């Protein structure tokens, strides 16, 4: 495989919506040609028009289009691409996909297949972290196969416990069990869900950490064994275990804990000889103990907040590292400026979080000074029920957190979207919440707000 500065001239993007568009933007700046793939349901979206070439690969449901590895690799081969960027979700963490890409003589922009497979299975990831000396949440050492075994483990670690599918992620395939009865009733449900979604019945238990924060560290590794971090992101504003707002730096975190997180993340990455962009997710409890949660072996949805405070284009770094080059900066040269917050605009009912597909008849964003908008849609586009409800990301970057909140308030008050419902009314609510304003909030924030 060709390596070096000029080795990647044409890239296929195996994704859709805002992230496909965002990758195209960087490719254009680097004068790299782009090949987009799209489903019949997405033919009108901006990224399809903005790519140099765009090929329809099937019907709306992801299994007929964006998850069809064979078709995507066929297009990549026909269009003679040098590399494939997987974006996030879909096939981005699929070890088989990476193997097939490499067999076709194409570069995968991401870590190698072995790391993906190791980190994609939560039980093996946990084991690797324990061996590397990275703290993990107390739980079962491996998978549990029966209700009685689960009950036994839960007795040892103490209730409440989280029951999780080993192949799960993104909040799918996990349930909180407060006592033995709940664990018994949930066990077979999670097992069958694990089978249906992730094609593996493997489940495991972890102690539930109350009032936890979800804080993650952006890392990069290269093929020469260098590993650096690009600071942390606090992603504790979540609904149904899915992120809604992310910010960097994390408010209310001691300098000592921050350093502990960076060190643990780098240790985790080094332990598996990590290459390319990755994110190490941690749970931080009230006493600021840190526990490894999972490692995401791809670009994150919320990567723009890191880009804003560091002044770095993460997709450009991904492409450089995929070419076999070293990480462009050493740790000492990486600096951060100000505060950044990302708001995920979802097509959903802001009260019950139910999806709200439909045609976007009006899309008028507010004053965009110092605001970055990564949108997958334009006015007149239709949001279909086939994909996740993220339609755009709004990223505010200011000198400090206080200013970010102020700018965000005015921006969302001015923004007008009609035809679909969005969670913007919820943002306005969160921006007035005393705990959020103080920066003192856990992953319970939204649940508490909805209950009150």
């Amino acid at each position, binding site marked *: 495989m060709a390596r070096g500065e000029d080795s990647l001239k044409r890239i296929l993007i195996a994704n859709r919506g805002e992230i496909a568009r965002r990758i195209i933007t960087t490719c254009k700046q680097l004068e790299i040609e782009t090949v987009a793939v799209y489903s019949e349901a997405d033919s009108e979206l901006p990224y399809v028009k903005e790519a140099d070439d765009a090929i329809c690969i099937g019907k709306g449901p992801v299994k007929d289009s964006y998850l069809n590895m064979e078709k995507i690799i066929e297009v990549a081969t026909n269009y003679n691409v040098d590399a494939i960027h997987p974006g996030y979700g879909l096939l981005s963490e699929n070890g088989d996909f990476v193997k097939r890409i490499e067999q076709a003589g194409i570069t995968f922009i991401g870590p190698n297949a072995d790391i993906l497979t190791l980190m994609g299975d939560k039980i093996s990831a946990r084991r690797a972290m324990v061996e590397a000396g990275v703290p993990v949440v107390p739980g079962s050492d491996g998978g549990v196969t029966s209700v009685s075994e689960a009950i036994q483990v839960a007795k040892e670690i103490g209730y409440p416990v989280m029951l999780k599918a080993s192949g799960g992620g993104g909040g*799918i395939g996990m349930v909180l069990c407060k006592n033995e009865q709940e664990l018994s009733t949930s066990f077979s449900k999670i097992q069958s869900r694990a089978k249906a979604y992730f094609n593996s019945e493997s489940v495991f238990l972890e102690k539930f950490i109350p009032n936890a924060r979800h804080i993650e560290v952006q890392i990069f590794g290269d093929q020469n064994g260098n590993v650096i971090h690009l600071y942390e992101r606090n992603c504790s504003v979540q609904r149904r275990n899915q992120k809604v707002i992310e910010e960097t730096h994390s408010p209310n975190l001691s300098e000592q804990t921050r350093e502990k997180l960076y060190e643990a993340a780098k240790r985790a990455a080094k332990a598996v000889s990590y290459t390319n962009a990755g994110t190490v997710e941690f749970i931080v409890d009230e006493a600021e103990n840190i526990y490894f949660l999972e490692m995401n072996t791809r670009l994150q949805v919320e990567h723009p907040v890191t880009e804003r405070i560091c002044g770095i284009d993460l997709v450009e770094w991904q492409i450089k590292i995929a070419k076999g080059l070293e990480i462009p900066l050493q740790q000492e040269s990486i600096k951060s400026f100000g505060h950044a917050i990302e708001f995920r605009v979802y097509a*959903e009912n802001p009260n019950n979080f*139910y999806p709200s*597909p439909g045609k976007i008849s009006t899309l008028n964003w507010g004053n965009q000074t110092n605001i970055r908008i990564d949108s997958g849609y334009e006015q007149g586009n239709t949001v*279909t*029920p*086939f994909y996740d*409800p993220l339609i755009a990301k709004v990223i505010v970057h200011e000198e400090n957190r206080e200013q970010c909140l102020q700018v965000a308030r005015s921006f969302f008050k001015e923004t007008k979207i009609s035809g679909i419902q969005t969670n913007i009314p919820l943002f306005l609510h969160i921006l007035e919440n005393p705990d959020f304003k103080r920066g003192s909030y856990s992953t319970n924030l939204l649940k508490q707000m909805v209950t009150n």
Partner: protein
Amino acid sequence: MKEIYAEMAGTVFQLLVNEGEQIEEGQVTVVLESMKMEIPVESKFAGEIKKIHVSEGDFVNEGDILITIG
């Protein structure tokens, strides 16, 4: 005859009842999947399931009839 409709567009993820079965008001009959979210469809009526109009994996539009209850 009473009917249970899809309240939003999506894919039929699970069918939880069979034709001929007696169901209660509030019972979950179908789970739809829309935008990666599972949406339980409860019956607004009690009665016998006369006909199931969809199969697992089918795509339905908002307002499509899912189940007829006698």
